[in-house]
């Protein structure tokens, strides 16, 4: 039950404990945070199961871990380790350019990234129990997460008041299942929780995503690439609870030290963009 919370990327048991103490609702176990994955280049894979197990043993909150897109054996391994949720993630190098994992075959719930409504509904149709915006991971530039949240929420609003025929046409246009599109139109939200992720680096960034309608946020490199991770982690948790209170946000944002340095989206060569992985 992660709604209204902050999920933090961690690479060691020590970092997981810091995240738990700060009030994270879950941690994402990785071998490197996205900013370092980006820097290192090469093939990015599932984290070492030893690290994942150490993190599971270190904290009482849920532990998530990432599998490569389409790599159902990495997902099997993560399920065997006992992770609480699996992220089929574009941050890692995709293993399959044709099929995402058939997530309905797993007991462990999945979270998947999406850039627009069609992509979100395709993932839900495969069994994703949670959607997150892709954003552009490891940049500290929130603009892509904002773009993806606009795309998803805007399209949902467009569905309002449409007839069944019109909804079916939209479903075809966005390549999404008709029943899920109709359900989304009716509920005026995704049928599963929708978190923001990718480039969130400050309490204000987190609150911005909540104001745009996110059910919660993932913070990747933004915590452990900042100058004072413990302080930043606590502040982002508090900001998500106070996202609609500017006075509280002003207090929460004071004296946190430097956020992660970051990389603006315009500086990244096209072939190094992560969000276009998956479809």
């Amino acid at each position, binding site marked *: *039950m*992660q*709604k*209204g*919370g902050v999920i933090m990327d961690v690479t060691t048991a020590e970092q997981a404990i810091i995240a*738990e*103490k*700060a*009030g*994270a*609702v*879950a941690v994402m176990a990785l071998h490197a945070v996205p900013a370092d994955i980006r820097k290192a280049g090469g093939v990015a894979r599932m984290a070492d199961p030893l690290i994942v197990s150490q993190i599971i043993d270190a904290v*009482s*909150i*849920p532990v998530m871990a990432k599998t490569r897109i389409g790599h159902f054996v990495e997902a099997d391994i993560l*399920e065997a380790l*006992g*992770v*609480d*949720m699996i992220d089929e993630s574009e941050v890692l190098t995709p293993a399959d350019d044709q099929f995402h994992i058939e997530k309905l075959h797993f*007991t*462990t*719930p999945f979270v998947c990234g999406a850039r627009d409504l069609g992509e979100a509904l395709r993932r839900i149709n495969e069994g994703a129990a949670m959607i997150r915006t892709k954003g552009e991971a490891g940049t500290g530039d929130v603009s892509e997460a904002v773009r993806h949240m606009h795309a998803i929420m805007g399209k949902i609003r467009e569905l309002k008041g449409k007839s069944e025929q019109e909804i079916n046409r939209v479903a075809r246009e966005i390549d999404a299942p008709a029943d899920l599109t109709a359900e989304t139109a009716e509920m005026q939200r995704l049928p599963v929780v929708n978190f923001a992720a990718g480039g969130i680096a400050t309490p204000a960034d987190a609150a911005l995503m909540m104001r745009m309608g996110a059910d919660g946020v993932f913070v990747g490199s933004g915590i452990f690439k900042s100058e004072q991770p413990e302080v930043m982690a606590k502040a982002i*948790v*508090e900001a998500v*609870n*106070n996202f609609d*209170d500017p006075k509280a946000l002003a207090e929460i944002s004071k004296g946190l030290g430097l956020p992660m340095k970051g990389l603006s989206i315009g500086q990244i060569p096209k072939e190094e963009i992560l969000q276009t992985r998956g479809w």
Partner: protein
Amino acid sequence: MLTIGVIAIQGAVSEHVAALEKVSSGLNCKIETIKKKGIVSHCDGLVIPGGESTTISRLLRFEGIDKELLDNEHIPMLGTCAGLIILSSYQDKDVEGLGLMNMQVKRNAFGRQAESFELSLEVTVFDSPFDAIFIRAPAIKQVGNGIDILASVEDYGVAAQQGNKLALAFHPELSDDLRFHKYFLQLLDSSS
């Protein structure tokens, strides 16, 4: 007019609000979400939803709501999942139960996410079983004086009542069965 406050720090807030709206429709009743101090004392009933107990516990302290709950312990309260832990006397390095109910609890008593389950549960105060959804659920190990176990799984209590306080280890707000929310409303009636 009755006001029911739902602690809205994190977790299954909207689901509880929706369930309370359904059971109170037609009654003169207002549902209010609580993220800050200053509201608790005006409420006739309070719900502490499920979520992550570490997060909820820390933010209750940060916002000063923990003290308000202790100062207003006469108000009927319903705690579900993490809310059950908050009502109990549980203490560890990250979670401080408020001790409003006289019971010892265990966090994640039934295992991790993959061990979550749904169960048709016999409840002492209902005529027929309740379909209960357990997600990384806590459980009641031991209870003190004045507290009744309303339902059990294995050796654990999973629903308990102490006067006008009700604690459930599962998520009644995620099922369509509103009997526990109705039962809670009756606790408000008998207190006022």
